[in-house]
């Protein structure tokens, strides 16, 4: 793997994966790079957006949605995911909630030398919680999003999709 730019992950592709997997609600807190995706989601009649102001809230909201028969997706940044530790533990892992977390991988570099501690601790955090994850960098990786949805349903656990193209695709 090198540091060369790859073809971007387009927001249209992400939205198509949401629809394909029957997502009903997107529980999210925007980061600086998701505006194009936001505009697409907002225009999509099959989705309801639930904006939170602290990422841990997304876990309890998603748990309630799932318990009521809906299919939520959590869309947050890695910084907020780390802030959400106890909510992840109690509301998602503790209640066996089958949910996908799409997590913007702030600081991700393809060569492993990064200058952002948000990236340094992202995968370690997920490993500590025993949450499986898939890296998605471009449209060519999009099928991994469906793999994550399938795994969440099969295992009744949260599964993460790390969006490693945060600085290209969503922001165009």
């Amino acid at each position: 793997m090198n540091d060369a730019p790859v073809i971007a992950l387009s927001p249209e592709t992400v939205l198509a994966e949401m629809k394909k997997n029957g997502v009903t609600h997107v529980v999210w807190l925007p980061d600086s790079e998701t505006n194009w995706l936001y505009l697409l989601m907002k225009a999509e009649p099959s989705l309801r957006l639930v904006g939170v102001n602290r990422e841990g809230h997304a876990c309890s909201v998603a748990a309630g949605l799932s318990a009521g028969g809906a299919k939520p997706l959590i869309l947050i940044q890695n910084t907020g995911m780390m802030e959400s530790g106890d909510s992840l533990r109690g509301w998602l892992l503790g209640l066996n909630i089958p949910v996908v977390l799409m997590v913007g991988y702030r600081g991700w570099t393809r060569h492993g030398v990064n200058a952002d501690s948000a990236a340094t601790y992202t995968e370690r955090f997920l490993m500590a919680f025993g949450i499986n994850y898939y890296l998605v960098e471009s449209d060519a990786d999009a099928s991994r999003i469906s793999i994550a949805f399938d795994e969440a349903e099969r295992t009744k656990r949260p599964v993460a999709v790390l969006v490693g193209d945060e600085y290209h695709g969503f922001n165009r």
Partner: protein
Amino acid sequence: MMRTADMLKAFVPYRKDAIVVPGRGGRYWVELTAHPNLDAPLGDPAMGGHAGFGLGLALARPDKKVVLFDSEGDIQMSLGMLVTIAEQQPANFYHFLIDNGVYATTGGQPVPNAEKVAYDVIARGAGYPRTFAFTEIGDFERALPEIMRLPGPVFVACKVVAEIENEPIGRRRRWQTRTRDQVLADLRTGLATTR
């Protein structure tokens, strides 16, 4: 001031087929409920999350009233959730607050600024269109029929007597009769959901 058990007893006649998330009132509610398959007595999965869980249920099931008995310690931990609920405007969501002013399960230490916080005012400021506050059980009982007729989101702050637990956790009476997995499985059955 009222007792939590009396507050919950007063609500029972108005429950009908609503989903109830009893929060920290769970230990009383399990003795009062007539529809355990529509209850979510989850105890405390992670502090501060009951409001989010209740909102999620309300959004997933707009055909049913969702009644949450939250606590002031949880609310203080997630005040921002009030803004999210107010933005979503779930017409089927009834948000009751059991405010005893203390962290009762850890020995009764006061929550920050316990005597001066006006939670109904905070909820109103966050955007809840209808808010109430009660300190006396009689006033609460008289207002309940109207409260449950109103469209949500409604916020109802109730000041209750603190019932402090000082027994070591391992020696406390367990009020849960079902595991959390069983509670959610029963709720899904009660709601006839397929997921």
